[in-house]
């Protein structure tokens, strides 16, 4: 018998033993950006527990508080740390509520395009032939249309199809679809390329010889092996999706002002920029920058760690 050492590692020990974990604790960028992200995620998803104000409850608002500057300025009030907007809503709470909408839209859009793109890319790479050609030409066509334009187009069509009353309700889904549909080609390309490499490996042949069906080979064997590069561009894509959401909301085709996202807040604040109330647009904007920047840094770190080609 060939002896392998008797200790079988648990999941947590496996993680602690892995190269990714070690690369993580050695990279200050990764630690800082993921800490920031965790704080942002936590604060925005449990915002009701954290903030004393609900900016969307009209009864709690007082127009007397409107345009209060941040607390450290002369006219600032201690109870509104980052000041208030034109309707007397606390900026910090509004930003956190808005950030939640932005994150929900960003995540949903990226998951939507991930499923669409990986599904198409995986099947295209696996089956090949005419199907692959059609899918890949479709991605080429999709890539020639700028994503903002695509999203505007989808939004325009949706406005025509959905009745006016329904529109505000449906806006968030339209937005998710619009962003998702413009980001799938990169997932399709990456997963197709990875599938082409994986499907010629012997473990796939072995499964074919055993008699495993194509569907199971694709999802049980190939999919887990192509997820690494897909997750890396997924992370970077998340930052892009959040930015796209903000851009669209800033342009006024995103989520309605009744459920503002970061982009909506920046747009609303933009009106007061020249009358001196800079904080209404500045804080949501800087928040957005920090959010997108942290996601991008984390994505870069993931790419460097998970890509064997960049390893030295």
């Amino acid at each position, binding site marked *: *018998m060939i002896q392998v050492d008797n200790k*079988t590692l648990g999941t947590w020990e496996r993680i602690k033993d892995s190269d990714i974990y070690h690369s993580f604790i050695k990279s200050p960028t990764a630690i800082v950006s993921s800490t920031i992200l965790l704080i942002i995620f936590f604060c925005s998803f449990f915002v009701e527990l954290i903030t004393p104000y609900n900016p969307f409850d009209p009864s709690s608002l007082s127009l007397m508080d409107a345009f209060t500057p941040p607390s450290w300025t002369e006219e600032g009030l201690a109870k509104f740390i980052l000041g208030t907007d034109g309707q007397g809503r606390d900026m910090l709470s509004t930003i956190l509520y808005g950030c939640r909408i932005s994150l929900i839209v960003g995540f949903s859009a990226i998951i939507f395009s991930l499923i669409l793109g990986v599904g198409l890319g995986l099947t295209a790479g696996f089956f090949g032939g005419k199907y692959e050609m059609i899918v890949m030409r479709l991605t080429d066509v999709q890539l020639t249309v700028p994503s903002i334009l695509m999203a505007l187009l989808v939004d325009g069509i949706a406005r025509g199809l959905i009745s006016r009353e329904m529109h505000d309700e449906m806006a968030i889904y339209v937005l998710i679809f619009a962003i998702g549909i413009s980001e799938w080609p990169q997932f399709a390309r990456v997963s197709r390329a990875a599938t082409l490499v994986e499907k010629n490996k*012997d*473990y796939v042949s*072995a499964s074919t*010889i055993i*008699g495993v069906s194509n569907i199971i080979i694709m999802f049980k064997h190939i999919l*887990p092996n192509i997820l690494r590069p897909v997750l890396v561009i997924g992370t970077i894509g998340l930052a892009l999706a959040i930015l796209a959401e903000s851009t669209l909301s800033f342009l006024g085709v995103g989520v309605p002002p009744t459920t503002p996202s970061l982009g909506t807040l920046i747009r609303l604040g933009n009106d007061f920029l020249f009358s001196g109330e800079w904080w209404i647009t500045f804080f949501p904007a800087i928040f957005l920058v920090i959010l997108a920047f942290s996601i991008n840094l984390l994505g870069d770190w993931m790419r460097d760690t998970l890509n064997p080609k960049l390893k030295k």
Partner: protein
Amino acid sequence: MTFLKVNNLSVDYQMRKEIVRAAKNVNIEVNKGEILGLVGESGSGKSTVGNAIINLIDEPGKVSSGSVILGDLNIHENSESIVKYRGNKIGLIFQDPQTSLNPILTVGEQLIETIQTHLKLSKEEAKNKSINLLKEVGIKDAETRFDNYPHQFSGGMRQRVVISLALCCEPELLIADEPTTALDVSIQSQILELIKKLTKERNLAVILITHDMGVIAETADRVAVMKSGNLVEIGETKKILTKPQENYTKSLVSSVPPTDKKISRFVIVEKKNSDKIENNIKILNRWTKKKRIINQDLVEIKNLSKSFDDNFFTESSKNSVMAVNDVSFDIKEGESFGLVGESGSGKSTIAKMIVNLFKPTSGDIFFDNVCITKIKQRFELMKFRKQIQMIFQDPYSSLNGRLKVKDIIAEPITLHNPSISNIDLNNYIYDLLESVELTQNSADRYPHEFSGGQRQRISIARALATQPRLLVCDEPTSALDVSIQAQILNLLKDLQEQLNLTILFISHDLPVVRQMCDRIGVLKDGKLCEVSNTEDLFLKPDHEYTKELLRLMPKIESIYN
């Protein structure tokens, strides 16, 4: 006269968890006009020593102690002196001729560049020198080939160019790191002849790093055996190979498949209990009890052809390459049939058609008197999938790294027997692991925790899970070290005997095929040259190509003469 002297050389790699000593206090001496073979298995540190001599150790490794004295100079004293020596006094030949030349420069440009870096010659002089060098290493029409790009040369020719590059600054020491491992046997012998000739003519000191004892036996004057960073034994080649002193050398020599006779089993020196697996291996209980008739054809291959279209848009046959061309043979139940051939001979393509990964362009394959190439229904095909299994060459890519070993082995079992209970499934997996001599706790691990040989055992366990009648082995040991190869070959022999398996054994390695097979078919360029019984083939080959192959194969026995 001692030309190169390596004293107490140690190389350390600072890894995350520990410091790995890739070479420990190695002492070697090489004389002018002599070939020193540096032999060892993967991870033995033989390449590390070669690279350390020219100070080409990759990060995070470093030479931690010792000195390298060339002539009467310590070339490790400062890092600048070594740059002067590398490529100048010391020439290098690497394993893979595909990657050691720059594909976007012509051969001539690369030669001239190297020459002008080290020698003060005009472009014209450098060109003349290069052409003479190309002639010296046996390249015909050197004047015209001078302007060719590397891709216009075949593998063997490219390795000749690499040798000419190594020689172009009149080095006195040549380090060849597995110079023939990527080459076919016929080209291998030419390259080795060339290196031997150059050693004598130019009075070079040569270090030949290889894992192949046959190559050592035929070329090296002295041999140094390495194991996990230590120099085990050094001495005259003949003495080391015939009367090894150390246990490790003994086991290494006994693992090499002899070319001149068939032995029943390889002797594993390190393992005390090298007996066969006991007769009552448990998976036998699950095996179909049906008595199998020996000497009946199990597989019949009739006029099999396969062409690959390299043109994507048209399906014209003009551009197609015939990988397999009108091949017919049969495999009898219970026998081992060997297919040998060099790379590109179509042997793997035939294997893939038998296991139904490729459809043949024309011709039929009969299994148990049913034509399996014409089956359309999936459930019909499944019956045969179960009976034909395959073991692959590369133990690293043949297992899905994301699945635990038990899930890898469970896949074929549950697929062909969905009603199996969990307890029964686990027992079966343990029995299978035991039959390939792995412990039960291997089941909960991932493939990356295993070595190449152990992975190949897992592969075998997976192939046995469906209780196949035919096992197609596509170069199952060519990625493994020779001692591991001996173990795997022993295992395959035992399993075949116990389970009455029919084996199609595909290999480029004639000595291995001789040990494993009852009958052998020789393939060349997609055509079958001859099929005959193993002993007949080796003693009185019919076909010219077979004779050629046998003549050229490196023979460890040549040392006895």
